[in-house]
């Protein structure tokens, strides 16, 4: 009999970790389904099925144990993040294509679980927004009260995609309005008078973001993530948006608007914290998070895409190995004696 020490092990596993990430997404999903529309639940199912199918096929091809890896939950997390970042009424095949691409190309072609240099969900978003820019930019107008059946029909392509389905995101609408009517409007005026804006940011969406924040805080409390990435991400976003907002409040939205808009909260707590494609050293995580927050702002405000989180994370994924290499922490005994926390 051979069993190496330690004989005692903590009760933990990859599938436990992934399950807890999914649980942490629930408050955000609930707000999403309640305030934006229950179609998101259908998208979550579609994405999950596509992810499991692609995962099973790839595991089969790579001759890996099916049950062990299908149950690890990593494919589901990827699927959910994809569903949550795609427009809720996107056609089913768009979500499925994105998910399958993420699992096959971004995950398994790089070696599967734990080996992917890029966040698979963000690869899916990037690929789809470049390939299908129109569909990826159609967000349902606020106040669109379609019954679930009709929403499902839209997703499945059984009902026509009417104009009301293809509004812009609050972030995009702001950008467009400011570009079209240079000087005629200011941000405060826009936010107060346009229907798509709520109290702080996009109507409804702002509470979805708060849901993600709550889930993220729970993950931090459970030690699934450390504080570094979310703090650096949101800190950088607040710093840069705050500076520009103070400089010209008529032209730039407030930090609060940016924090609660688009994928900022999802990105800060669920995407930039992905350990596989992100940084692992404490200082590395700070650089990674800050870089992602800064790039997300630049892309969403000055770039051509509705939101910048996906590309910001992918760009930082590229830098992660080098950042890790350069930020290796000093080890026990290799710093000044006597320094450090007192009990």
């Amino acid at each position: 009999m051979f069993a190496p020490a330690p004989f005692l092990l903590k009760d933990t596993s990859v599938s436990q970790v992934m399950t807890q990430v999914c649980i942490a997404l629930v408050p955000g999903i609930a707000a999403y389904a309640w305030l934006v529309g229950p179609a998101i639940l259908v998208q979550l199912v579609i994405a999950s099925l596509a992810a499991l199918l692609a995962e099973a096929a790839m595991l089969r091809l790579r001759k890996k144990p099916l049950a062990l890896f299908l149950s690890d939950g990593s494919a589901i997390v990827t699927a959910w993040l994809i569903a949550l970042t795609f427009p809720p009424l996107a056609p089913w095949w768009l979500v499925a294509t994105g998910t399958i691409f993420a699992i096959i190309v971004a995950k398994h072609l790089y070696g599967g679980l734990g080996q992917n240099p890029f966040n698979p969900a963000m690869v899916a978003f990037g690929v789809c927004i470049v390939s299908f820019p129109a569909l990826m930019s159609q967000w349902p107008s606020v106040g669109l009260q379609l019954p679930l059946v009709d929403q499902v029909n839209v997703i499945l392509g059984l009902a026509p995609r009417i104009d009301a389905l293809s509004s812009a995101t609050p972030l995009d609408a702001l950008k467009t309005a400011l570009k079209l009517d240079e000087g005629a409007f200011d941000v405060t005026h826009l936010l107060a008078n346009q229907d798509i804006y709520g109290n702080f940011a996009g109507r409804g969406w702002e509470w979805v973001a708060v849901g993600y924040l709550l889930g993220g805080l729970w993950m931090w409390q459970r030690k699934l993530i450390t504080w570094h990435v979310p703090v650096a991400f949101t800190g950088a976003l607040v710093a840069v948006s705050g500076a520009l907002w103070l400089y010209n409040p008529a032209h730039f939205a407030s930090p609060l608007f940016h924090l609660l808009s688009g994928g900022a909260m999802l990105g800060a707590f669920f995407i930039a914290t992905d350990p596989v494609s992100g940084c692992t050293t404490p200082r590395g995580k700070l650089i990674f998070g800050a870089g992602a927050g800064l790039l997300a702002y630049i892309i969403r405000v000055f770039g051509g895409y509705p939101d910048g989180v996906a590309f910001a994370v992918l760009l930082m994924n590229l830098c992660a190995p080098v950042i890790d290499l350069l930020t290796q922490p000093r080890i026990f005994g290799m710093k000044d004696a006597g320094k450090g926390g007192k009990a």
Partner: protein
Amino acid sequence: MLMNLFKFKGGVKPPTNKTQSLGKPIAQAPIPSRLVVPLHQSIGGTPRPVVQAGDKVLKGQLIGEADGWISAAVHAPTSGTVVEVAMHVQPHPSGLDALCVVIEPDGKDEWIPREPVNYKALTPEQVRERLQQAGVVGLGGAVFPTHGKLTASKTVPMEEMVINGAECEPFITCDDLLMRERAEEVVRGIGIFRDLLQPKRVLIGIEDNKPEAAAAMRAAVQAVGENFEVIPVPTLYPAGGAKQLIRVLTGKEVPAAKRSTDLGVQCFNVATAYTAWRAITHGEPVVSRLVTVTGNVHEPRNYEVLIGTPMDELLKLATPHPDTDGIIMGGPMMGFLVPQPDVPVVKATNCLIAHSDRLFPPKAPEMPCIRCGSCAQACPHELQPFEMYWFSRAKNFGKTQEYHIFDCIECGCCSFVCPSRIPLVQYFRFAKSEIWAREREKNAADQAKERFEFKQLREEREKAEKAEKLAKAAAAQAAKKAAEAAAAAAAGDTAATSPQAADAPAIDAEKAARQAAIQAAMERAKAQREAAQPKNTDNLTPDQQQAAAEIEARRAAARLAVPEAPANEKSE
């Protein structure tokens, strides 16, 4: 007493499982049917056996003599007859065997004459010598000969002496009970160490889950009239690691490359202090120790056990459950399954845990690393275990060293928290042993190279000497001829010639021939050296030279015709 404690990073809190074996006082384990006493029970030289089969021995009689300064003597644990001095399987994961003295007890348990000594009358040298002769070694598990740690540094003043009563490993309670029941002798033992090392402070660290032990120690310190500080430290595995306890109590961090004495700290286990006291003032060498017998048994308990007692006999005292399928020596975090149940209890044996799948469920299958970083957060030495894992797996051992693999104390915290169930410590042990093996190979190759070069040199010298002899012979021939000619001439001439006149040309010829031969030999040697050393290795950095040397060594060792790519090639 209020004192600022320091923290070490990382650490884990496994279930302590200590209460099971704390219920009853220490019991004396009966003398077993047979004692197998390994000679090598401490770090350092293997003691030489001084008894042979058939010898009668008394309890405490020397059976293995310390070999060198860092080595500790071994004694007969009870009276009886030496059955054999032979190889037996050791309580070590390798299952290798080593020389043991096997004793059949006579049941009388008759001591050698013991001479109680007041150690204050002895010089420090005498105390150290007595400790060595009594076989006193670190009983916390490292079994380093204690006398070797008791010489104060001449350059660094000894500031703190740390006494380790933390006992952080789950299940183990032998130090706890020792402190509860024999605190005074522990304190007096610490007094011996204190007198030898003269530290400014003596700090006794005890994890705060042992309030009874701490209270007993405090009372003993007071009763003996010492000024030692008994300090409860937070229960956090591995707070009982020497470096961690030193950190917690003094704030000092001992790096892998240094000794604690370089920082003015020395650390001893409480049980070591106890045996030192018994050895010096009672003349009792280390022939027994406290062992916690626990795990999958009916009656977990601490026993005073004779060294050499077969583990299965000891385990029987605690009545193991029928599904017991192995014996763990040590704790569940750093212990190991012994290769067979009848291996002997040695000085390093602090705990036996009966193993069963019920108690320690088989590990779930290993998954890929997801770089979650839990291991890095748990590592008390602030290493990046997952990085070392990647490189160990890839056999990129140079990189593992860049990530400080030799700072790893193999405490098991990383494996404990890993959600992917990767046996990280195993990977690190593998990497370390590979690095050591390569180091040895390299040394062997270096020696071989040296031998080869010396042989070449010798052959050159012999050739040169031969040439010289030939030249001498030729010169002698020439001189002879010249002499003959001269004689003929002299015979012709009537005048007497000086002997120098005839000898001079002969000596010149001899000298010239010798010089020519030496010159030729030197030139050949030079040519050979140049041929042997290609020019492109002349201007290498030390790193590259080392890499090249390692390649050479491996090639030589493996007799490979095809050069292998160096595993620790540096990307420059």
